[in-house]
């Protein structure tokens, strides 16, 4: 059957695309919209590398069909920095060396931002459980958790 | 005369002899002399042998100097993060 014609908002921009029913939002972002910041690590919702915000809700874009997102608001890693200025999380991930290979970093950052928007003062345990769906094989999570908590503290000070 | 010791399976190519006293001034010379003594060992020397001269391991170097009082060990190369055999 014919492809679906979808209109949605990605990082504030109106986008239009065509997709097959079986194509996931991740396929659409990476292959159709050429936004390769969201990564595919497992395509089964187990690694979190494809994390995006869908209408303000943190989801794995590999578990969303492209044809489901008509009229909806999507935010990806590409929209995290505000113009010239990095998001405080991005800045602190750099300062704390909270990334090594960097493949999980976009997903971890999108998920961390979602956490801080709901909880400006998370405990270490809350950060660890919130990020349990974001696998990182390089860092052992230590510097990631430190960077998130340090960012939260700084943002609270404003 | 440098003291040369074979580690691991190389001794099987020298009829079990594991220690030699050889007067050589470089790894290249050492390999040549061993190959003269035991032709069968030649191929293995080109094929992934590391040399430890006075405690310092050289993964692959024909030109490292060997002093008369040096202690030299021949051991398998360590490929490390790469494929190990």
């Amino acid at each position, binding site marked *: 059957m014919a492809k679906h014609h979808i209109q949605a908002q990605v990082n504030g921009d109106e986008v239009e695309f065509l997709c097959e029913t079986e194509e996931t939002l991740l396929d659409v972002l990476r292959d159709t919209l050429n936004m390769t910041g969201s990564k595919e690590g497992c395509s089964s919702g187990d690694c979190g590398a494809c994390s995006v915000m869908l209408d303000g809700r943190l989801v794995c874009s590999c578990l969303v069909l492209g044809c489901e997102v008509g009229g909806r608001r999507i935010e990806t890693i590409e929209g995290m*920095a505000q113009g010239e200025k990095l998001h405080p999380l991005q800045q602190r991930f750099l300062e704390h*060396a909270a990334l090594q290979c960097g493949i999980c970093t976009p997903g971890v950052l999108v998920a961390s931002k979602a956490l801080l928007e709901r909880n400006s003062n998370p405990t270490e345990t809350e950060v660890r459980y919130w990020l349990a769906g974001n696998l990182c094989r390089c860092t052992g999570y230590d510097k990631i958790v430190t960077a998130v908590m340090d960012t939260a503290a700084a943002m609270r000070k404003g | 005369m440098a003291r040369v010791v074979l580690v*691991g399976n190389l001794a099987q190519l020298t009829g079990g002899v594991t220690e030699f006293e050889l007067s050589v001034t470089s790894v290249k010379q050492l390999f040549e002399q061993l190959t003269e003594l035991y032709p069968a060992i030649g191929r293995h020397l080109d094929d992934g042998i590391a040399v430890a001269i006075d405690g310092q391991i050289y993964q692959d170097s024909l030109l490292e100097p060997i002093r008369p009082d040096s*202690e030299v060990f021949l051991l*398998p190369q360590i490929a490390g993060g*790469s494929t190990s055999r």
Partner: protein
Amino acid sequence: MAETTTNGHAQSVVGTRTVRPDGVDKVTGRARFGADFNLPGQLIGRVLRSPHPHARIVSIDTSKAEALPGVKAVITRADFADQPSEFIPAGEMMMNYKDVVRNVMAREKALYEGHAVAAVAATSAAVARRACKLIDVQYEVLPHVIDAVEAMQPGAPLLHDDLFTVGVEPRPDKPSNVAKKIEIKQGDIEAGFQKADLVIEREFKTAPVHQGYIEPHAALATVSEDGTAEVWCSTQGHFIVRAHCARLLGLDIGKVRVTASEIGGGFGGKTVVYLEPLALALSKKAKRPVKMVMSREEVFKASGPTSGATVRVKMGATKDGKFVAATAELKYQAGAFQGSPVQPGVMCAFAPYDIEHVYVVGYDVVSNRPKVAAYRAPGAPISEYAVESVVDEIAKKLDIDPIDLRMQNAAREGTKAAYGPKFGPIGLEETLNAVKKTEHWNAPLRKWQGRGVASGFWFNIGGETCVSLTVNEDGTVSLVAGTPDIGGLRASLAAVAADELGVPFDKVRPIIGDTGSLGFNFLTGGSRSAFSGSMAIVEAAKQIKADLCARACKMWEAKPEQVEFSDGAVRPLGALAEKAKPMTIADFARVAGKTGGPIGGVGRINAQGAGPSFGTHLVDLEVDPETGRATILRYTVAQDAGRALHPAYVEGQYQGGAVQGIGWALNEEYIYGADGKLQNAGFLDYRMPVASDVPMIDTVLVEVANPKHPYGVRGVGETPIVPPLGAIANAMENATGIRFTELPMSPPKVLKALKEKGLNKA
């Protein structure tokens, strides 16, 4: 301006926590990894894989697939020339291409579930998927064998009828699944054990575990009609990829250009080729670019995990704790083709200790599993886990503090290593002392909690390295390295370049060059890239400084001894200082053309003098006696870095290795059914640690300078995964009173053991 100096090299940037030059791209999603490359007109490639663990391939009919609209090429074994059975240097790695070509694409037989038997290139992923279903492969299914010990039994299903055990005299007349027997001997074992008051012998089993990099293998390849080829791929060594691909496709090395993408983790698993030769062969046929990306299931089923193994260790000690003799027998799974890391396993087993009489024998065994690939300190964690467990048991039996016992027997400068040569300056004692000084070591524990300690060793390597430094017109510096940056390499190398040339860190732009831009580089592995790369940069910088001094002499009509290079400028000395002003690198850059042309240097070295790195880990855990689940409560790593070029990324290596070790010890394993098929080929049931599984990982950077490196650097990447298995097993013993000799120590195993002792009550 220099704050510190090691081995005569002043440092102001080295040793500081700079922001990595490639960092912004990685936090904004801009960095391009393996699957992020695309070319106009590209096709999508897909591999058809064997559903059987062991089967003769009777026939492959691709006609239906080829007839499907949108299919542009189909390849099988027929598209790859056979290779002779000989070990050939591929770059620096020795490979038996007879096996490499068969692992890339099955020939006579499929040797493991997931073994590639054909591949297609089509206009879309969906078409490629349909095409694979249309390929008709006739298999003659054969009996399979998964476990190495079973594979060693006479009468076990034979994988290769031309595989005769190497290393046994006389050479066997019958083929077997044992590829190799290796031994190291030292002293007189019998006599050694005579001196022992206490002898402990135990057998251990470890499960195969996967490197678990989050980025699946990916490659994009294009071959032109004239035989020139380009490959973009995620690899730890693009020069190695080039060598393999040229060999397998019969291309000139010079005609193959490989660009390494940003790499999403490797840990040794991306040192070999899987998709690259297939993508090239498909592109050659289709005359269009071909992109291939593995699914996570393919990564687990068809790329290399590390060996599972059976290890028997026997150690003898005097009643006052001196180790007098030790033997070990190692049986390592190689997967479907020979080449397990049993060799380093044998050499590392007793390396941390000063033992007079040692005998270790190892077997390299093939079975119907994916061919193993290197995984962080290949082979070492397995044999050292067994040894560290026995060492702990000796400490208990002799009632000696486990750190004191290790200290008493620790290898130190001048100790004859179990594998032969004497150690130079090493830091094992320092790491033991560091751990003992932590507050962690003396913190109180409750019931069902236990503390474990273990040490670990890895050789580290150097190897062929080529790096270029170019001074640009404005005085900024371009740094080109040829080893993929897998965890902060560019930050470390840029720091060294900045200090060597006396330019600000942010004026150095480091990139990873393709295979056309530099001389041969061995891969990122063996904990070598920062060690060797920094040595090559020192060499390249030396050339630049000499050139600038020579130019200054000409401009100032001075003699060489009247000038010197320091703090980023050529300075006139003595009387000359009256009439000449110092010239900075930027000053020279402005007049480069007038004074002889572009300014630059190329470091071309085969780095020697890699210093071993020792580490000691300390872990607390708690066991739930009713469910057998262990929770890691606290963790401390102390390791000798020689000199930490970038402390934050060195800590990162310690922390990441420790957590990989936690996964290996507690939950990770390949689970096979009786049908020889992998049952947990996904992140759901292959259980790597998640953020909520682990605590903060405290680190202690021990620095015992490596005298053979200009900055005293030792490789740090691999040693951190060696101690965790033993440390956690020892902590489990202290928590439960039970010695676990089989990994992973997963809840069902632990609860069973507790029940047998009647301990499964809170």
